[in-house]
């Protein structure tokens, strides 16, 4: 388990998990609705394959349901624990050779932009996905957690089971790798005016 979790959201997750363990089916639905989108997005971004991501998410959530009766509130943050399970399952799949196929990436939510804006946004997402796939697995996870999902470095350190300095190093190298991979696509992605 990780660092104590004083945040209200974390306590809510832990309270819902406790209610689930006491036999409350509504708690299961609430907790699944809160956590599944986050870990599904992470798995999609890291694996680049929605079918693989679905398998990872289902397996991770089963592990959460199984540990619920033994969960001790205040010892760890539920979402951090779950991210860690997902990160490890993604690592296992990537090391077994799961390929990143952009055609299989889940369709993003439609925020109803104009057609041109939508095409550019889609092009940028595809380019980012391709560039992420070129990164070593740990750098990819660190960049996704830090720069897309917005987690703090100490939480990422707990998820990846490394020190905070290692997280800083992984994200910095990951961003440099992304910049190299995307260097030839600046104009195509609408970044002519960027430095």
């Amino acid at each position, binding site marked *: 388990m990780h660092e104590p979790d004083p945040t209200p959201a974390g306590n809510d997750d832990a309270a819902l998990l406790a209610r689930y363990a006491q036999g409350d089916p509504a708690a299961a*639905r609430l907790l699944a609705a809160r956590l599944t989108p986050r870990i599904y997005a992470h798995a999609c971004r890291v694996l680049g394959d929605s079918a693989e991501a679905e398998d990872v998410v289902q397996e991770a*959530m089963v592990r959460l349901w199984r540990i*619920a009766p033994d969960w001790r509130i205040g010892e760890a943050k539920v979402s951090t624990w779950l991210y860690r399970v997902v990160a490890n399952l993604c690592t296992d799949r990537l090391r077994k050779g799961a390929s990143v196929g952009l055609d299989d990436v889940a369709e993003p939510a439609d925020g109803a932009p104009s057609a041109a804006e939508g095409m550019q946004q889609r092009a940028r997402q595809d380019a*980012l996905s391709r560039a992420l796939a070129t990164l070593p697995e740990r750098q990819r996870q660190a960049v996704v957690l830090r720069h897309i999902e917005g987690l703090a470095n100490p939480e990422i350190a707990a998820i990846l089971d490394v020190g905070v300095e290692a997280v800083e190093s992984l994200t910095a190298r990951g961003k440099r790798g992304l910049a190299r991979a*995307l260097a030839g696509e600046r104009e195509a992605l609408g970044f002519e005016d960027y430095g």
Partner: protein
Amino acid sequence: MDDRALEALFEAERAAPPVVPEALMQRVFADALTVQPSADSRGWRGWLRLLGGAPGLGGLVAAGCVGVWLGLAPPTALPDLAGLVLGVESTEVYDGQTDGLTGFGWDLEES
């Protein structure tokens, strides 16, 4: 590509995250219900289930009552433990001679 361009790419990805398929949500929820400990397995209901439910508890109560009964009013062949513990001799031995009753009704036939 500089940090501003990278941040624009991250922002594009944040703005349109992958949507969880409804079928996946249903599978996750079905797993939750399958794995979930039932409310019956906790608290006093859990203890009751450990004892075998209502039939098990009924048998336990009946056996307890018989034990108390035997302890307070033992058959003649058994020692009177309650009497020994309390220091009171409570067992009466029926010798069959103090009155005219028997189990077979000979006295009625002969009279």
